[in-house]
């Protein structure tokens, strides 16, 4: 155990002495944490619309202003023909086009039924779908309004009406930052921890000092542990720093207990750093280590539910994602930070992370032994 102490002392000294690296490791996450939430705002609003109003009646005017007043839509083009509207859509100057037919008001009164044509640029599927749903709700609302206001001749039978009261728990103001900031923090800690631990052994291989270590009686797992712990501490520091920024800049404060958060973080880091070390034992050069870890970080970022929902994936993809430590930890983060979930709520995810971590680390130790 004493040799572990000296290993740790050496690793921390080397780490702390590399001022440039420390600076990058601290400043880069801060910048990213400041910039990412600004850009990564995926809330669907500001859907731009083009309107073709063939009717030009008071009713059609009221309809259009009802739409723009909703807050979701902004009118960017008011054109005369449907084909002009389509051209606007093609140029990406509008996301959807609404065509109000001629004699809209007259037909509605005469026939009691009138259609409105809506064309949506569906390249961004979600935006299109939500835009359609919003528009649908607005039209239903508008419909009830005119029905209530209209002097209805003869029809006295009351219409049953169901009103919907919706409430948003855990994030009533629908603040997107509350959702994205914890996940970004996870990706930053992951990328940093994995890359640095992937470099650690390779660097000793390249400088030749690994031979010196191999002729000493030091045990393999102690050596690996000595490499792992300093990065764990560093990751903890960065994480804490990130939490402070999240609190100061985005007013994201964990609802749940910090104890749960940090305990999970340590377990998570154990798994991620293990993967880094595994990459390290398979690489002969820093370039290889970099390529491999970049490959994994990239896949992790895409699939772990940072920006895209894991729930919407097909089953096979869900099965793959189940083996990614970051996806579990992102869930834990969001649960603890936003909902105040406790150990019992997150126990499943913790167990999975521990299992994955054990696999990675055992593999790394075994493989390190083999390559010597």
């Amino acid at each position, binding site marked *: 155990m004493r040799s572990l102490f000296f290993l740790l002392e050496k690793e921390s000294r080397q780490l702390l002495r590399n001022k440039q690296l420390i600076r990058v490791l601290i400043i880069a996450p801060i910048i990213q944490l400041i910039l990412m939430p600004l850009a990564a705002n995926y*809330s669907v609003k500001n859907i731009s619309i083009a309107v073709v109003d063939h009717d030009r009646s008071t009713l059609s005017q009221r309809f259009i202003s009802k739409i723009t007043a909703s807050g979701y839509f902004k009118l960017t083009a008011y054109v005369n023909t449907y084909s002009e509207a389509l051209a606007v859509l093609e140029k990406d100057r509008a996301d959807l086009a609404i065509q109000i037919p001629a004699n809209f008001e007259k037909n509605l009164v005469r026939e009691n039924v009138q259609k409105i044509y809506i064309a949506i640029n*569906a390249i961004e599927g979600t935006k299109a779908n939500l835009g359609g749903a919003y528009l649908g709700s607005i039209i239903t609302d508008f419909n009830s309004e005119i029905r209530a206001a209209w002097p209805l001749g003869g029809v006295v039978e009351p219409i049953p009406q169901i009103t919907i009261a919706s409430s948003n728990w855990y994030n009533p103001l629908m603040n997107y930052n509350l959702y994205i900031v914890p996940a970004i923090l996870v990706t930053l800690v992951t990328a940093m921890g994995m890359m640095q631990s992937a470099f650690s052994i390779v660097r000793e291989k390249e400088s030749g000092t690994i031979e010196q270590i191999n002729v000493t009686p030091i045990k393999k797992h102690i050596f690996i542990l000595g490499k792992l712990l300093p990065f764990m501490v560093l990751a903890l520091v960065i994480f804490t720093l990130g939490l402070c920024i999240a609190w100061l800049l985005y007013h994201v404060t964990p609802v749940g207990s910090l104890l749960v958060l940090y305990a999970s973080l340590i377990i998570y880091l154990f798994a991620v750093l293990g993967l880094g070390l595994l990459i390290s034992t398979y690489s002969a050069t820093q370039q290889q280590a970099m390529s491999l870890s970049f490959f994994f970080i990239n896949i992790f970022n895409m699939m772990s539910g940072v920006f895209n929902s894991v729930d919407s994936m097909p089953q096979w993809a869900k099965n793959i994602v189940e083996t990614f430590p970051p996806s579990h930890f992102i869930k834990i983060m969001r649960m603890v930070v936003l909902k105040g979930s406790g150990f019992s709520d997150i126990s499943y995810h913790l167990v999975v992370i521990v299992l994955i971590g054990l696999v990675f680390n055992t593999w790394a130790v075994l493989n390190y032994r083999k390559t010597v």
Partner: protein
Amino acid sequence: MKQLLVFVKKEFIQVFRDRSTLLLLFGLPIAQIVLFGFALSNEIKDSKVVVVDYSKDEVSSRIIAKIGASKYFDVERSLANADQLEAAFKKGIIKSAIVFPASFADDLLHTNKASIQIIADASDPNLATAVTAYLTQIINDYQIQSGRAVGLPLQIIPEIHMLYNPELKGAPNFVPGVMALVLMLVCTMMTSVAIVKEKELGTMEVLLVSPFKPLYIIIAKLTPNLIISIVNFFIILLLSSIFLDLHVQGSLLLLTLDSILFILTSLSIGLWLSIGAQTQQAAMTSSLMGMMLPTLLLTGFMFPIENMPLPMQWLSNLVPSRWYFIIVKQVMLKGLGINYVWKETLILLGMCILLFTISLRKFKIRLQ
């Protein structure tokens, strides 16, 4: 000229002998296409919803059945009591809940007005918005249908056409983004590393001392990456055509030419990065950190640029992939011609010429 060919051949041999580079070069684009095409979407599907039905009447059960039948929702289970909701949400499995009050049936029968409560887990605001919107839509549909059954007057019926992507798949939006991301990263990183590697090996010294023109060194270093990137581009097109049913709608020639322009721009950035870097590690880190993030954030394929604060929107104008992304969307997905993308093409051309000239001028014919 023969010198140049031999140099280019050597670069190819080296690329194909390094497995980890190959993985990054070809594995990443393929993995990305597969992921984006098949795995990733923001579409809500089978979202777990919990029902608390205090009323248990005919209308409530009909609404519940309608919700369960929709592709968006899975009615997970019914809770007898709303107090249990909190615990269920905390486990993170259910995303929304519908509460029918005990008086629901009575109110509807006697006052013709009743209220339903929808509770959404807004820790994911987008999901919450979407879930609420879809639930509302289903309930509204139910009302319209029952209204039509009784001959409701003054009905406005929206008729919605989804253009370009009628099945609302995620792929059409992601493929152009992936193309921009992959081409950008591969080009910049591979180029910056390739040049710095020669510096580290000491071979750059010999190349510089040789009568071989520095311009040729640059061209020789860029050519393999250019060709590999073009191959990558076609692989992505092929994959998305075969697996994602996403075909090039517009002119393939125009798309290819614009892609080559974008690749050249990215290569120039790589060249530029390699000039400052002394070690491969520095070159890789700067191309990853410096390129990855802006490309991901400011291209517009993951996050809509119009939602960003103004300074970020201005900044996004400087990112080449932003313009390329627009071009691909217009030409590949909408099938538009040059008259719709000439502006973007010109911007890319300008960036390319500027960056290449800068790197060419800065490329050192000496060691310091």
